[in-house]
């Protein structure tokens, strides 16, 4: 393998004597600027844990209560900080427990490096104790993976792992290291990876494409931008803002792109997709030029492709060439990092305001407000709604919190109603929809941004998938605020059963434990709210606390999330009820 290297002298251990592979792994992590990792020990990774013990002043290891928790924590950390998250596990069951997090990071393009122990080289293929083919298992859910069987491979491969995880369209990398390679000694030196011959992280912007994009946008009467996480990953927030402001283009986001532009920006017209806002969904089929920036036309965003934006010319800004024409054909494809391509586009755009067109969004917003939003965030019925909880969190945190959500109705409500003033603030499992993501991801998010308020919004179902991570919050006193919106149901599935399966509520009713007692068992301050009059004050107390805090809100049991584009329907067929 041809890799292009950069000499790094500072990270070298002082003497030139030989060190073990396990110690080398620590030096590699330090050289990559890692000071925090999540993991779980076991036989095949014990030499590395022994070194972690020796280096604990430089490198903090957080013992999650399950390896899945380690991956989601690493993801949460990566998503708020823009750095590479690191997770570690032993061979066999330790390694297989990483798979959900890898798949989640793969589909949501999250930079993560997972290190797994493996049985010694001479036992490979012998069905040794805790041997599993994690390379084979993780291949479809990693950007890259590699098995190290010799200590001397460690520096080059780990350097490459970090480079690949972070560069271009980011993603998870798994490095499996046999136990003999952890014990064996070799002369260590570390060089950061600067490139891999066969890998082109980001295509160079093509001026012809940018001119063609500018020409289409300048001619457009009803241009419409839909941006995705590419804007956040490419740190192109300012560039995007400049583009929409100069050309007066209404811009909507996918849930992965949320928070890149402040919620209250006048040209931010809301969320697209299945439970997105009415205006941006319906007007997708009325715009004349659809400008997609760093998004991949997921089916939850487009609904039926046969009726998606057929009237529009499509301009697609994208770093990954494989996304072009994958789902929606592009009339103009602008390849490259969105930070660069948008900056090149800006001077070619004509100033405009598109007032009438922007007014269309306002009109649709008013309709949605009257029919949906008003009742969600200012309900008059007795039961508490998820929407009003989010609204109170907005108010108490002054829109400054990082909101980490799990998966289900509460996730859609959180994405719809949370308000953001800063990028990298909405952390959720978008592509995979992994229940159980929320609690561990919130731990990582808090540790990745200690100065920020982190609020986890979780359903009673998903909470119980990774509830054991309360142990981490307790042990390390990580001051996350955990809000469980308890409807005593697997709400989102129940909603589908109500709407599409004649109310046959198969296995969606939850008989729940006393969540407050469970939190208290972990010595976490805990409150339950079931009346509206207690909501505001309790949320204020929670946000004011500088300690971990658990809040269970008993919400209406059978509420539905609207608007909704039924699965497979057209964005034009969005339902308000």
């Amino acid at each position, binding site marked *: *393998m041809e890799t292009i290297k950069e000499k790094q002298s500072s990270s070298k251990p002082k003497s030139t004597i030989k060190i073990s592979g396990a110690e080398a792994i620590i030096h590699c992590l330090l050289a990559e600027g890692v000071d925090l990792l999540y993991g779980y020990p076991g036989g095949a990774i014990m030499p590395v844990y022994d070194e972690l013990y020796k280096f604990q002043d430089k490198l903090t290891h957080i013992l999650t209560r399950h390896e899945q928790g380690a991956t989601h924590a690493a993801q949460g950390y990566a998503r708020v900080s823009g750095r590479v998250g690191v997770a570690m596990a032993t061979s066999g069951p330790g390694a297989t427990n990483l798979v959900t997090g890898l798949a989640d990071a793969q589909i949501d393009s999250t930079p993560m490096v997972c290190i797994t122990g493996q049985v010694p080289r001479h036992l490979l293929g012998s069905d040794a104790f805790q041997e599993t083919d994690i390379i084979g298992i993780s291949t479809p859910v990693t950007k890259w993976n590699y098995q190290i069987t010799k200590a001397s491979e460690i520096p080059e491969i780990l350097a490459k792992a970090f480079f690949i995880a972070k560069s271009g369209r980011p993603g998870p990398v798994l490095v499996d290291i046999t136990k003999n390679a952890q014990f064996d000694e070799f002369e260590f030196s570390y060089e950061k990876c600067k490139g891999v*011959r*066969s890998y082109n992280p980001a295509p160079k912007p093509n001026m012809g494409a940018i001119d063609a994009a500018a020409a289409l946008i300048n001619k457009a009467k009803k241009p419409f931008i839909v941006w995705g996480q590419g804007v956040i990953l490419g740190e192109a927030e300012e560039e995007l803002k400049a583009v929409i402001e100069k050309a007066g283009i209404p811009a909507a986001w996918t849930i992965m792109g949320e928070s890149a532009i402040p919620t209250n920006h006048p040209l931010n017209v809301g969320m697209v997709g299945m439970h997105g806002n009415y205006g941006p969904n319906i007007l997708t089929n009325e715009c004349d030029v659809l400008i997609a920036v760093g998004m991949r036309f997921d089916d939850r965003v487009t609904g039926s492709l046969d009726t998606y934006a057929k009237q529009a010319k499509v301009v697609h800004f994208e770093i990954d060439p494989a996304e072009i024409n994958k789902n929606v054909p592009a009339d103009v494809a602008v390849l490259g990092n969105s930070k660069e391509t948008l900056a090149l586009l800006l001077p070619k755009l004509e100033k405009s305001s598109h007032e009438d067109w922007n007014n269309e969004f306002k009109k649709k917003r008013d309709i949605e407000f009257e029919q949906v939003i008003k009742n969600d965030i200012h309900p008059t019925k007795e039961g508490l709604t998820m929407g009003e909880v989010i609204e109170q969190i907005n108010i108490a945190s002054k829109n400054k919190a990082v909101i980490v959500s799990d998966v289900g109705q509460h996730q859609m409500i959180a994405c719809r109603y949370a308000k953001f003033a800063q990028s990298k603030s909405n952390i959720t499992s978008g592509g995979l929809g992994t229940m159980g993501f929320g609690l561990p991801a919130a731990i990582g998010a808090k540790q990745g941004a200690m100065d920020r308020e982190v609020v986890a919004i979780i359903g009673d179902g998903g909470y119980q998938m990774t509830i054991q991570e309360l142990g981490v919050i307790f042990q390390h006193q990580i001051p996350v605020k955990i809000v469980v919106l308890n409807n005593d149901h697997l709400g989102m599935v129940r909603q589908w059963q109500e709407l599409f399966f004649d109310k046959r509520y198969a296995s969606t009713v939850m008989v729940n434990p006393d969540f407050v007692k469970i939190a208290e068992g972990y010595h976490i301050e805990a409150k339950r709210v079931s009346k509206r009059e207690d909501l505001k004050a309790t949320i204020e107390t929670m946000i004011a606390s500088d300690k971990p805090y658990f809040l269970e809100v008993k919400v209406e049991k059978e509420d539905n999330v609207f608007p909704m584009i039924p699965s497979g329907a057209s964005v034009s067929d969005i339902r308000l009820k």
Partner: protein
Amino acid sequence: MKNQWFTISVYSENNVGLLNRISGIFLKRHINIESLNVSKSEIDEVSKFTIVVYTTEQWVHNIVGQIEKQIEVIKAFYHKDDETIYQESALFKIDSALLFDERQIQNIIKESNSQIVTVSREFFVLAKSGRRPEIDEMYEQLKPYGIMQFVRSGRISVTKDEMQISALLKELKV
């Protein structure tokens, strides 16, 4: 869009796990690999996968994009049959007695342009290179007499036009 035959050519670094990654891309889309051949290429230390699929142009485009995205893949191309020169090879193992007892066998050998690779007391082996229908035809002709063993290779192919690979490698700085 209609199904057609496509030959995918993948230039890659030599890597143990890559075959798994590439075949996974087909598996995920439920597309059958009709034939697969891995060999060295015209460039030192660069391997070439030749993969034949029967699918739509949209799918092959999508698949090639996904293949090219793999870290060790330098470049992937797809071509239609009329854009390539392609062949497959086959070996037939046949009872030696037939060579002497059945006149027709000799005619088949002559007409099919195949070669006798080896002859022993028990069996002889015929090698045939060509396009799939020619090999199929020979198979059908020999079948009534009894074929002891048969094997056909994956397609190998070269393109009529230049493959833009050497220039690319220079640009990527080897």
